[in-house]
């Protein structure tokens, strides 16, 4: 075992330790420390990814002194390393480009507390990606919920308070279902680690004993995670939370944290229950229908919004629908497309939230579309970045969004029957709807403003923020042009993901 084998463990520990130490530092120091930690995690994850690409299979990493069936462990494979790299990169970019916005919501004395929550959120995301133990999943999901609640509620405004209360109620309900599911699963199998769990579940399926409780467990855990990741009929908490949160928090929440829940769900399907059992219990069909409905209805809701932030928040609901549709197709190709969409959406959505805030900022802090006219000229870099991110959302070629839609369509066509028709129809319709609201927004930020609107002078966006936004824009283009190696990592990673 070389030093690199330990890097995922180091990055988790680093985030948690930074969270503890940040509490005694002043705002400026804690800000720099957080940026350094997230940057280090990015480098460590990238090195881990390089290591796992050289290894044939994933390797388990023992946490503590007890080996597998008794102790806790994490598992490091290509898929996990790729997700960790992608998410920490998105987090790093969002923090550099958007940290200064958070300063206008959080007072100087309390800024270190905000930094703690950022560290804890990243630690929880990393643990959820790597862990091999179902109860650890529960604990860190709760830590992530608390951290994201704090990230949003730093903005002391009536709308934010109401949104976060709704958010907490739905998330607590989801956690309750998840915990009940885990408790029942422990009751019928006697294990919490995923490798022995899967053997026990296979025995249950073969012998037919406790098959009823197993169905209940699958339903409870799927429902819990679906609520927490804002799958369509349970999305009620999402738009307001994303829209009224500070922009960095919105980028982190909708870009990274909601994806971590979905990654846990994929892990549960593949590594605990086994995809064949999930398909035979018709859970995938449920996810498929919810995904398709989310794609369409999320987009329709987005069109009817007058506040640009709520529009983007509703488009998140639609984009989560794409992920669930990919999962619901139920084939390996469908899940690969869903995993790729998780990366693309994380990058694009955080860009959208950050550039939108810049555009709102140069329009005198007004969010309605008619005040945003001409914002693309008042802040040229933000306008360009927003336009490109919107193009990716619509699915214009050479952007990540196009590759996602292409892969979803291919995996749908490969199945045939009514699924093929549904996938193609849903993709066509949602692309059409996406282009309606995103192109409308792009056109409106480049329109001539009405003459009676007076826009106050605002401080210029600092150069580093513009550069970061451009770099992340290149990332989105890279996901479109150079998607082949990433798709291959996902493909080979998913093969050993069992």
């Amino acid at each position: 075992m070389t030093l690199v084998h330990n890097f995922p463990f180091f990055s988790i520990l680093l985030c948690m330790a930074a969270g503890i130490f940040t509490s005694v530092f002043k705002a400026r120091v804690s800000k720099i420390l957080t940026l350094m930690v997230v940057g280090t995690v990015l480098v460590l994850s990238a090195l881990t990814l390089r290591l796992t690409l050289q290894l044939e299979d994933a390797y388990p990493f023992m946490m503590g002194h007890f080996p597998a069936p008794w102790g806790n462990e994490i598992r490091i494979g290509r898929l996990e390393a790729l997700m960790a790299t992608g998410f920490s990169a998105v987090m790093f970019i969002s923090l550099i480009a958007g940290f200064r916005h958070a300063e206008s919501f959080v007072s100087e004395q309390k800024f270190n507390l905000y930094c703690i929550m950022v560290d804890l959120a990243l630690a929880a995301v990393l643990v959820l990606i790597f862990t091999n133990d179902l109860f650890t999943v529960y604990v860190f999901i709760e830590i992530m919920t608390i951290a994201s609640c704090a990230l949003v509620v730093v903005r002391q405004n009536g709308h934010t308070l109401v949104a976060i209360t709704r958010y907490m109620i739905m998330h607590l309900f989801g956690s309750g279902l998840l915990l009940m599911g885990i408790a029942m699963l422990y009751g019928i199998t006697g294990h919490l680690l995923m490798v022995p769990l899967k053997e026990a579940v296979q025995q249950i399926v073969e012998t037919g004993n406790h098959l009823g409780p197993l169905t209940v467990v699958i339903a409870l855990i799927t429902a819990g995670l679906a609520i927490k990741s804002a799958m369509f009929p349970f999305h009620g908490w999402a738009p307001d939370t994303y829209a009224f949160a500070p922009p960095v928090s919105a980028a982190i929440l909708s870009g990274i944290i909601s994806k971590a829940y979905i990654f846990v769900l994929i892990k549960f399907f593949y590594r605990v229950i086994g995809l064949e059992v999930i398909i035979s219990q018709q859970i995938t069909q449920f996810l498929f229908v919810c995904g398709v409905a989310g794609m369409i209805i999320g987009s329709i809701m987005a069109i009817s919004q007058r506040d640009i932030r709520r529009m983007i928040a509703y488009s998140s609901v639609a984009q989560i629908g794409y992920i669930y549709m990919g999962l619901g197709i139920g084939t390996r190709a469908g899940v690969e497309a869903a995993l790729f969409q998780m990366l693309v959406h994380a990058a694009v959505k955080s860009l959208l939230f950050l550039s939108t805030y810049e555009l709102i900022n140069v329009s005198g802090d007004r969010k309605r579309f008619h005040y945003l006219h001409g914002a693309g000229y008042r802040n040229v870099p933000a306008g360009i970045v927003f336009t490109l991110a919107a193009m990716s959302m619509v699915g214009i070629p050479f952007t990540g969004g196009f590759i996602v839609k292409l892969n979803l369509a291919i995996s749908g066509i490969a199945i045939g029957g009514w699924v093929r028709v549904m996938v193609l129809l849903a993709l066509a319709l949602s692309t059409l709807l996406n282009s309606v609201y995103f192109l409308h927004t792009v056109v409106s930020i480049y329109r001539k403003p009405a003459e009676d609107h007076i826009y106050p002078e605002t401080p210029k966006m600092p150069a580093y923020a513009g550069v970061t936004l451009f770099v992340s824009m290149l990332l989105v283009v890279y996901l479109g042009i150079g998607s082949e190696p990433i798709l291959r990592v996902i493909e080979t990673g998913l093969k050993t993901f069992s």
Partner: protein
Amino acid sequence: MPWSLLYENLEQTVAVILFGIGFSILLLQRNLIRKIIGLNIMDTAVYLFLASMGYISGRKAPIVVDGVTEVTAYINPIPAGLVLTGIVVSVSFTAIMLALTVRLYRRYHTLDIDEIAMLARGEDA
């Protein structure tokens, strides 16, 4: 289904009923304090479920005192450990929800979530 199963697994039955009561209160009540109570009932139900699973009648708590080290002398300690972790989580969530409630009450002078949402809608976003 034989009804005697429900009676034989009395703790689990009660736990599932309590869980249902708890999440109905959490989702359906409009008063924030009642919602928090519902949350606590829901979580406690899961702890009852877990604890009853680990208990084996006639055995002792897994603390070695008289040098007895046979596995058959003790109950399963893992569910108890899970319950302890769960209690910590639910205490912190209760604290956060109460803090949010205090903040909302100071601002709107009511605990009714629908009324609060109505009042907030009139504000500038």
